[in-house]
């Protein structure tokens, strides 16, 4: 190996990237060439200086307020989910569905001439449970909406679809309840009310899954 060949391989030699045979050739050349030894030493000193450069620097202003503003929506959502607000909603929704199913007369279970009991849809307990359920769902939706900016495009699409579903289910619930006001003993309507609530529970669970992904 001559000086020109050595200089071409000097960086790889210093970085320890030469194959064994070429490394040995370089060592042999170094042992016999004072100029290349100086050059090698200079490069090593330079690299030591570079690796010793300070790796920290302080920005000229406090960057935290700008960060805090951008992360707050997701923080709000995380706090909401961690507080378990959604659990209350699910429990309340489950109570609504359970009460409705229990209140629904089973086909053929009533003796002929027996009077049908009014359905429980309008009872105070169920109304309270339902209100809690609606509150929890709305809170979760609001928190998710506030976090939209930090969602992936896929999550944003799913969020839009879930919102549409929520609106459709709420419309359906209103329609069924209105119908039940005029025909409170209608079994079909009661079953419809229960299944619509069940759909809303499923939707709530999807929202919770979505919130855990962002």
């Amino acid at each position, binding site marked *: 190996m001559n000086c020109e060949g050595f200089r071409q391989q000097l*960086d*790889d030699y210093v970085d320890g*990237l030469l194959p064994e045979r070429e490394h040995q050739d370089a060592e042999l050349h170094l042992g016999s060439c004072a100029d290349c030894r100086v050059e090698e030493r*200079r*490069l090593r*000193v*330079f*690299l030591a*200086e*570079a*690796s*010793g*450069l*300070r*790796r*920290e*620097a*302080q*920005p*000229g*202003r406090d*960057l*935290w307020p*700008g*960060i*805090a503003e*951008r*992360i*707050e929506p*997701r*923080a*709000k*959502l*995380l*706090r*909401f989910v*961690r507080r378990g607000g959604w659990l209350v909603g699910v429990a309340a929704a489950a109570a609504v569905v359970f009460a409705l199913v229990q209140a629904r007369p089973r086909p053929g279970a009533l003796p002929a001439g027996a009077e049908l009991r009014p359905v429980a849809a309008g009872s105070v307990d169920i109304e309270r449970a339902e209100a809690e359920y609606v509150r929890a769902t709305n809170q979760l939706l609001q928190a998710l909406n506030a976090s939209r900016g*930090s969602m992936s495009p896929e999550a944003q699409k799913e969020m839009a679809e879930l919102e549409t579903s929520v609106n459709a289910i709420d419309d359906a619930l209103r329609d069924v309840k209105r119908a039940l006001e005029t025909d409170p003993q209608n079994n079909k309507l009661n079953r419809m009310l229960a299944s619509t609530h069940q759909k809303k529970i499923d939707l709530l669970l999807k929202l919770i899954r979505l919130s*855990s992904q*962002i």
Partner: protein
Amino acid sequence: MVLTPGVGARPETNPQDDERRARERQRVKEAQEGNVAAYEELYRDNVGRVYGLCLRLAGDATLAEELTQDVFVRAWQKLGGFRGASAFSTWLYPIAVNTALSERRSRARRSSRFLATDDLEAFERPERPPGPERGIDLERALSQLPPGARAIFVLHDIEGFKHGEIAQRTGVATGTSKAQLHRARRLLREALGR
């Protein structure tokens, strides 16, 4: 492929005490639950390293500040996936590198920006030993490098990344990374007369 972060290539000389690590783990856990104050502590502990890297890669103090904010916002969004297998800084650093390189790539065609002289003050420290100007000279020369060569020099010779990692992060071939590094070293040594 699992990447070895740059900080792993140059381990902390001070292993830090268990108490500090435990406090950091606690802050991470709190932040994962939405505690912004806990995340601010993590930010304060790590902003110097992140900003230092962004400043060298961006070559512009204002852009480096924006990038630093982006890094911590991205890290916040990904924090739920951090399982604490490493130090928070080790987990954070690749996010910083990727964020800075991503921005560098996106504006590479638009313009070439240079580090202003005043920006170099950010790297100065009062406790420097006699003859600190050599470091500043190198910083100044570094700021004059073409952006591609500068990024690879910073990642390899300052931050300790290997060529394979650099190639993956920058999207260039390993051979290109080596060629750019050698070019950067040559230009710097010529500029510094070494």
